[in-house]
């Protein structure tokens, strides 16, 4: 059918091209809104870098802000499923993939800033950094763990792997999150209150997930008793 062909094409642009109010996706504005908002930190960095407003040491500032933005997106993505199960909200699950991909996007930019701007492809120094400095090693590991997750984030890969297996693979995100939190704590010179706050949020999300999993596992038999 011509109509359905058109629908599927336009339907890829979330929120746009919804012709009839019938059978519409709920909150069609949500994904484009998150998409635009997710680009704001990058735009803000570019504007400040262009106007010399990124402190006297712009490269260090750029690295710090890109890394922190990546961590915030990662925590936001991890909060989606607890939000659904505890609060009954369904909308976070619809943007979880988008949040996770933004986390990967900013983590990759963070690494690129280190590679290109900070070290300028000095592979010797980078190799020594990774080998000798645990905080850089865990950061690199966190990013590497996120690569397969970003690749297999599409619907096609969910189908190919089967939802169960896909889900198990994507639990690696918790390891990446833990490494990212440690990376942040070890990097800070003295005041670890900010990285510890993010680490605590991460630990809280992990504990919630664990509690929900235990309840699901043991609630069944307990209810039958």
């Amino acid at each position: 059918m011509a109509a359905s062909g058109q629908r599927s094409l336009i339907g890829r642009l979330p929120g746009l091209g919804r012709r009839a109010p019938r059978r519409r996706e709920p909150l069609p504005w949500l994904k484009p809104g998150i998409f635009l908002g997710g680009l704001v930190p990058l735009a803000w960095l570019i504007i400040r870098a262009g106007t010399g407003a990124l402190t006297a040491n712009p490269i260090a500032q750029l690295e710090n802000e890109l890394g922190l933005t990546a961590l915030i997106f990662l925590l936001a993505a991890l909060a989606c499923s607890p939000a659904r199960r505890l609060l009954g909200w369904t909308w976070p699950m619809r943007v979880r993939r988008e949040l996770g991909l933004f986390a990967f996007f900013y983590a990759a930019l963070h690494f690129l800033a280190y590679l290109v701007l900070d070290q300028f492809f000095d592979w010797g120094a980078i190799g020594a950094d990774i080998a000798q400095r645990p905080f850089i090693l865990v950061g690199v590991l966190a990013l590497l763990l996120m690569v397969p997750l970003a690749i297999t984030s599409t619907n096609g890969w969910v189908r190919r792997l089967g939802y169960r297996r896909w889900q198990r693979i994507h639990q690696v995100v918790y390891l990446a999150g833990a490494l990212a939190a440690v990376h942040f704590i070890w990097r800070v010179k003295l005041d670890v209150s900010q990285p510890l706050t993010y680490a605590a949020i991460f630990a809280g999300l992990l504990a919630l997930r664990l509690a929900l999993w235990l309840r699901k596992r043991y609630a069944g038999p307990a209810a039958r008793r």
Partner: protein
Amino acid sequence: MRDLPPEPPSSEITPEGLYLSRREYIKNGVYALGTAALLGGSLVWLAGQGPPPDPPPAEPLPANRVAFTANRTFDTDEPLTSEHSITTYNNYYEFGLDKDDPARNAHTLQTRPWTITVEGEVARPRTIDVDTLLSWFPLEERVYRMRCVEAWSMVIPWLGFPLADLIQRLEPTGNAKFVELTTLLDPEQMPGQRSRILRWPYVEGLRLDEALHPLTLLAVGLYGKVLPNQNGAPLRLVVPWKYGFKGVKSIVKLRFTATQPETTWALAAPREYGFYANVNPAVDHPRWSQATERRIGDFQRRKTLPFNGYADAVASLYSGMDLRKNF
């Protein structure tokens, strides 16, 4: 009723579906932009920072002090770091932890009246008004490299006088082996002291021979003007072959001691910061490399030099010492 224009033909009536979808577009657009603003705003608030402040303009020197001499013996001819960078990119935790916090917050510091107490192993312990103390010495301009332990560096035109001149005038006793210098303790003026992040007041120290070295400076100005508060007004230490944290700011006390002073950073993290803190590319900070540094304003990193490039002048102070142990 006849004068009424004819109704538009039914073919011109917007179909209900389209009419609704136009409203839908607008509504969705507004909601999407609202979401974007909310998310973007939160992210910038959490992870981003505003541009650094314009520091308050530095005061010119008093008329009787303008004629400073230039002692070029130790000057570097490298390009100067801009005054804006020197006065907005500071580590001065008494006024906040971010680099631009001191420029924002240090206006609460009252630098006059100001006294400096001299005590310990010294002929005559006493308290000296800072202006009296300054009247004793001619000011010199010294262009020094400054290497921060965080692996960035600057080139700064200081105004000051050698610490040696002051020490000689104060006549330490034969027992004096070290000098300890202390920052003001006043959480009212220094709001950062309300957090227990370091043990306040900030204390630094030098071996007496280091303190007497002609490179060691007490600075009261930079770029030919009065030292801005965020840079350690009214009086700060500058030891160019050591990491920047040795340069204790806003000094209120000099104490001569027979034993090595307990210094702030060495107390806070003894594994990471030593008493000597000589710039040394061969001894890394446990968590980052000290082999290279970024000169503020430069794109590429440069190699860090032993003793920050002052090895010819100061290496002999440490002959026979294991600098890996005494970092």
